[in-house]
């Protein structure tokens, strides 16, 4: 591949993101702007921004790579990533917006009247955020290595530095614009190459005949029920607890707008995911050799250049590289914003300066992890972060919104249980299943049992909590569920 294309595309995305970020800087001066963009963002902007933030390396590169590698089982990833927003709509969107809290730790502290519940939640948010940033940086490493020939670490470093600078300088107001822009960039960057390939590929001989490219042994009929169900539990419920997703809902003016935004997000994601899926299908037909080479995740980057020769192929390649970088930058910066919010409030006094320090910190810790570890499939590693989130933050969030019996002790016990179980399954799973192979699927996809256990522990400990439910629980639940217009002390605008 022509390295110049890679350099140009990556530099262009970095410059454009920074420009939009600094343009937004002019309107983001006060603390509220840094945290929640003044809550004045319109639903379509907001939905685009949510999409821009959410579609990560796993969506942009990982899904197509996994379809190439494993077949139709991978189709469940985009379904889960999208349907997670349905669960968010049904159970979380409006009440969370009405809670008035900026972050999940704010929510748990206010709901449970407990500093300890806040501390545990904050710790989990930081751990989840860091481990979610790592695959983004690994995706950047892969992209830089494949497209420019530079050493892989240069990609991780570049993304970490850009994100730290833009977030520390601009805050979330500018990030909203950047994210919205990046959603449409990502969509375009996949859609145009797919259409171009479909139109122009007529004379290219498929590498495999359809029957071999899509064997029914890898087809939808051959379903591993436990793994699929467990993956769906992880993705559907994990979306509820992702820190960078939740913070977006505070930029809706009210609960109704939060719901409307979420439906728009469903539409945007549904359209987007058709294209990584198409890339995966094209890859199985035209580039099956990539599956064997270990670079399946690079399918999206390599396919346009392979199938369309000449300058048009170069332009399309530049486009997908730009889209991929937009994915790494947007997800990482969204995560860094929410992590920096949590870290600066809990440790650094909540000032703008503390936010900047925390932003730099939140970018560089995952960089160290990314440099020290090897990527083992982008979609898979992000899926595990979802499983961990579903087992820890999701039970507290759901029960906190819908069950008045939740107590601080119950919440903390549930979060710790979920963290230990899913953490051990994810980190120690390979080691355990080496001598107990029957446990392998349960450790590789733990959500189906860790989430119910975490919920059960939360409920039982809350029930047994002698101190009873926190004061103000009924008032807080009223605030979560009563529509804004029915409040006598309604907020304006």
């Amino acid at each position: 591949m022509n390295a110049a294309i890679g350099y140009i595309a990556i530099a262009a995305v970095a410059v454009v993101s920074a420009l939009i970020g600094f343009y937004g800087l002019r309107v983001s001066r006060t603390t509220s702007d840094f945290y929640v963009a003044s809550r004045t963002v319109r639903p379509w902007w907001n939905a685009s921004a949510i999409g821009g933030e959410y579609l990560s390396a796993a969506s942009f590169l990982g899904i197509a790579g996994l379809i190439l590698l494993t077949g139709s089982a991978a189709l469940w990833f985009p379904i889960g990533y999208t349907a997670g927003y349905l669960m968010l709509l049904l159970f979380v969107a409006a009440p969370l917006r009405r809670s008035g809290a900026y972050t999940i730790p704010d929510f748990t502290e206010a709901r449970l009247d407990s500093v300890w519940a806040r501390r545990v939640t904050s710790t989990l948010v930081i751990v989840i955020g860091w481990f979610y940033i790592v695959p983004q940086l690994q995706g950047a490493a892969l992209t830089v290595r494949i497209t420019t020939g530079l050493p892989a670490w240069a990609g991780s470093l570049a993304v970490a530095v850009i994100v730290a600078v833009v977030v520390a300088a601009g805050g979330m107001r500018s990030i909203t614009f950047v994210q919205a822009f990046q959603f449409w960039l990502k969509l375009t960057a996949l859609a145009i190459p797919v259409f171009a390939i479909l139109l122009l590929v007529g004379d290219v001989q498929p590498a495999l005949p359809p029957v071999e490219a899509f064997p029914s042994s890898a087809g939808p009929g051959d379903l591993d029920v436990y793994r699929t169900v467990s993956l769906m539990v992880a993705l559907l419920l994990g979306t509820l607890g992702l820190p960078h997703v939740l913070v977006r809902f505070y930029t809706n003016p009210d609960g109704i707008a939060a719901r409307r935004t979420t439906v728009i997000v469903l539409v945007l994601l549904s359209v987007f995911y058709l294209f990584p899926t198409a890339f995966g299908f094209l890859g199985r037909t035209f580039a099956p050799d990539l599956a064997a080479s270990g670079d399946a995740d690079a399918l999206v980057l390599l396919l346009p250049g392979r199938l369309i020769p000449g300058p048009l192929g170069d332009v399309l390649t530049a486009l997908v590289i730009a889209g991929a970088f937009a994915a790494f930058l947007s997800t990482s910066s969204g995560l860094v914003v929410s992590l920096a919010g949590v870290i600066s409030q809990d440790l650094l006094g909540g000032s703008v300066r503390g936010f900047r320090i925390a932003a730099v910190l939140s970018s560089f810790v995952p960089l160290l992890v990314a440099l020290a570890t090897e990527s083992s499939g982008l979609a898979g590693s992000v899926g595990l972060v979802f499983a961990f989130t579903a087992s820890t933050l999701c039970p507290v969030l759901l029960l906190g919104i819908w069950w008045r019996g939740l107590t601080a002790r119950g919440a903390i016990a549930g979060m710790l249980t979920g963290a230990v179980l899913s953490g051990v399954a994810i980190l120690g799973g390979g080691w355990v299943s080496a001598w107990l192979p029957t446990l392998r699927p349960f450790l590789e996809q733990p959500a189906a049992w860790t989430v119910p256990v975490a919920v059960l522990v939360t409920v039982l400990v809350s029930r047994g909590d002698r101190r009873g439910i926190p004061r103000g629980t009924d008032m807080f639940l009223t605030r979560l569920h009563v529509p804004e217009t029915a409040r006598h002390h309604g907020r304006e605008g």
Partner: protein
Amino acid sequence: MTSPSTGGSAGRSSNGGAAGDAGRDPRAHRGDQARQDAVDDAPDAPPPPADRPAGPPQRVRVTAPRAGSAAAPARAMTPHGADAPTSDIAGVYVRSLIRSQLRLGIVFAVGFAVATVLFVLAIAFVPQLDETFVAGVPLSWLLLGAGVYPLAITVGGLYVRAASRNEARYRSLTEDE
């Protein structure tokens, strides 16, 4: 929850004792997040930068919640003020709203899950779908790759209308009062 236990490890010591009026909670001026409340937070906010021009008039300064300050339970945001006990008629209405919204969410979630399972079973048990190729891809793969999204959007759209209806019903009940 008759008497809050003394101190306790879970951070209730700051206001655990007196059966205080939440509306006069001494921490009330600190670290609230609601934009409306934030206007009252002005004493706690850092002074505005001198070089800052007047700017758009609707801009409101909000300070971040401090670590360690309970982030303002619902006081002053309830329909009948902070001192409304929830055993009265208003509380009954609120609880029934919460119950009906939860029921609605569960019904739609289960409906989505059942519809998805039926869809997948249909794909799995019609072998012709594996053998019919559209643009070189088996129809079964295409259906699984694209078919669940319209379902999710439909369920989401219907839910928004139903949830808004529940809220409208609540509103008309409380306004009749």
